[in-house]
């Protein structure tokens, strides 16, 4: 792979705090290596801002290997930027060329208020999990692991759903800011397994209720969430969830 350096123009959303009015600021960055990650490019800019006595750009990040779900930038109109199935931290600068202008924004959703600049409050996701995203079992003498066999296909589908990193890209991409893909992934993870059956109905009902309470929008099944999901969580999970929700609502046995 040939490496190259580039000069770029960044238009970055700056917002002092939740209540402040935000604005785009323009920054020029020079000699950015194509080998850098996108966040390392922001690091370089921030280092310069600190030296200049300016306020560095606040952004969430932690593992920088695509698994913690902390990073969350809207890059050129797309959550996590141009690469398919890739988090912002794994996006590398060879996705861009010399002279490009890059627009960087925070997640935009009522249920994800901006804390500062590109940092948003995603604690609503924790509260959705608190509403039922678990199997009610205390630590103790659980039965032997192999006493609960699980069909391989179901175990694999459950795992695929459970690989959601709760980054919120699905919400950011959705025109209604719906959290359906996030929630459906959690419902599918547990409802596909025998361990999840006893709470199958109550789980989906209370999680959906919590989602509504948090101010997320409704799902109109446009598929924008699936298209930007860095973990390629399938939209079929939403169908599964809707089915479970309907069944739970129709059935008199709670």
């Amino acid at each position: 792979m040939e490496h190259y350096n580039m000069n770029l123009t960044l238009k970055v959303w700056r917002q002092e705090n939740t209540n402040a009015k935000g604005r785009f600021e323009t920054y020029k960055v020079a000699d950015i290596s194509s080998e850098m990650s996108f966040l390392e490019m922001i690091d370089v800019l921030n280092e310069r801002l600190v030296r200049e006595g300016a306020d560095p750009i606040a952004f969430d990040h932690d593992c920088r290997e695509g698994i913690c779900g902390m990073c969350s930038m809207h890059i050129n109109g797309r959550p996590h930027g141009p690469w398919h199935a890739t988090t912002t931290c794994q996006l590398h600068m060879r996705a861009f060329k010399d002279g490009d202008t890059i627009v960087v924004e925070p997640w935009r959703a009522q249920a994800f208020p901006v804390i500062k600049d590109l940092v948003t409050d995603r604690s609503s996701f924790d509260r959705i999990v608190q509403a039922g995203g678990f199997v009610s079992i205390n630590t103790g003498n659980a039965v032997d692991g192999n006493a609960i066999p699980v069909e391989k296909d179901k175990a694999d589908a459950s795992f695929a759903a459970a690989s959601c990193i709760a980054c919120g890209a699905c919400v950011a991409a959705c025109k209604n800011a719906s959290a359906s893909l996030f929630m459906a992934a959690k419902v599918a993870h547990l409802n596909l397994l025998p361990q999840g059956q006893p709470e199958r109905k109550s789980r989906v009902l209370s999680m959906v209720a919590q989602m509504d309470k948090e101010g997320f929008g409704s799902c109109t099944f446009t598929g924008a969430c699936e298209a930007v999901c860095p973990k390629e969580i399938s939209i079929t999970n939403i169908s599964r969830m809707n089915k479970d929700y309907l069944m739970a609502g129709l059935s008199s046995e709670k």
Partner: protein
Amino acid sequence: MLNAKIPDGSLDKKWEDYKGHVKLVNPANKRKLEIIIVGTGLAGASAAASLGELGYKVKVFCFQDSPRRAHSIAAQGGINAAKNYQNDGDSVFRLFYDTIKGGDYRAREANVHRLAEVSANIIDQCVAQGVPFAREYGGLLSNRSFGGTQVQRTFYAAGQTGQQLLIGAYQALERQVALGNVKQYTRHEMLEVVTIDGKARGIIARNLVTGELERHAGHAVLLCSGGYGNVFYLSTNAMGSNTTAIWKAHRKGAHFGNPCFTQIHPTCIPVTGEHQSKLTLMSESLRNDGRIWVPKKKADDRRPGDIPEEERDYYLERRYPAFGNLVPRDVASRAAKERCDAGYGVGTSKQAVYLDYADAIQRYGKIEAGKRNLANVDAATITAMGKEVVKEKYGNLFDMYEKITGENPYEVPMRIYPAVHYTMGGLWVDYELMTSIPGLYALGECNFSDHGANRLGASALMQGLADGYFVIPYTIGNYLADEIRTTNIPTDHPSFIDAEKAVSDRLNQLMSIKGTETVESMHKRLGKIMWDKCGMARNREGLTQAIKEIQELKKEFWSNIRIPGKIADFNPELDKANRVADFIELGELMCRDALHREESCGGHFREEHQTEEGEALRHDDQFMYVAAWQMKGEHEWELHKEPLNYEVVKPSQRSYK
């Protein structure tokens, strides 16, 4: 004098006897006892959930925006357990023995045996929670092999085992939050331990959004804050992983055990330039099929494909014919460093070696042709079939490599180099996981207890969950049973006021320096000193020099750092400055520990102590002990020794030739 409080009796009965006789706290009293937990990785989340279930009042803190983001989430390979589902001769004793041996005989027998005993319960617990482990077609759990063992005892969920286990623990934790048993404080960082009459009674935490300092009281404090690999600046740790919680405890009097024991993982994606902010691990499993080599000619700039077979040096196969590419992590890492230092490294930085799948692709291609009864297949078809097999086994890792480097590892060999991955050292704890401060506990990677001088693959997840789910719920009762009369701990006690003031003064001091250097650049400089002089190979001269350089760096840091913004605000640069200041002090202690340990063992390689063939040379007669350091003042520590008595295992020299 250190008392590890190891129960009497034979090794295999210690834990059972302990559990049978430990003090209990009745449910009515549990409701009145508060426990503070710092960190929400596998150890912290599992402890918080389990203690909440027991009825204690729990407060849990993490610096991330959600407990689920803790760095346990990034563990790839798997979790060991002595289930013996494969009927291949595994047992509690074998898991215990492998762990002790893998740790190069520097771990405590009783703790490791307990770890092996509870390993099977962990798998059961996780399955019951709905952790989607890999399964066979019959619906039962699947296992795979891992380094340093001869049995298949590793449970896994693709290359995301840590993620799945952490989500399991996180969900159990969130359930307790919903039930009101646990209160969760995200975007909070612990900045001080509060002690009253010598006992841990609470913490001072900073709300990272508002910058406000908060006082939290508890009858016990559990630190579950992970490892300190970021002292090297570049490591496979998350950007926020830090030593601050345990360092504050150390400054308050908790002994630090074996600080120099660091694990350098051999297969990571190499550094590309000065901008590099972190390193990414490529799972150990890649060494099962890949061959590691460098050119025979120094500074050979040809493309790997242009270097003919006879001009390649498969140095692991050459040096270690018996184990070849599958030597343990510490050995593989040192061998790569040796070649690169000698001028045979590859890539633009020359700090990398090749991990080549060309042979494996051919081998698997031919096997496929045989399986499908294809005769006279052309070379291109063999290669294509071989690539398919490799993709099935390692596809996600190959994809990750391509994303980061832009190179296709199916076509050109991967470039890899060792990187800091895990720290075996940590706060000294006794058998009950209590530090040398009463009421202050350390769980998971942030304690020193189970991995000796080198950790085996798939054992970190096991330890984190063992400590949180199955050890602390028993051992904490033994302490809290005597605390039931301590009803209310007032946060306006002078100890809280003093602790908060100390934190506040330090933050003000940091902000008032207004120098010219960024925190990031100072951290990089610390990392370079540590990597060059306290990394894969260490010697007296280098370590002595490093201590001097770190002391100078500390002076410079406290006189020339520049932090923008305000204290009472969301200020990540201030958070980072706080952490780097602690890393600098820890770096000095690590070098002192490495300097004092005049032997080589596990990840600690002192160049003065090696065999004629360049292998690690232990000195059991002098160093069969845990080095527990007590801070006495600025740049001053006192060494306490906890002798390691091997009652069951007979220590021997490791050989992989």
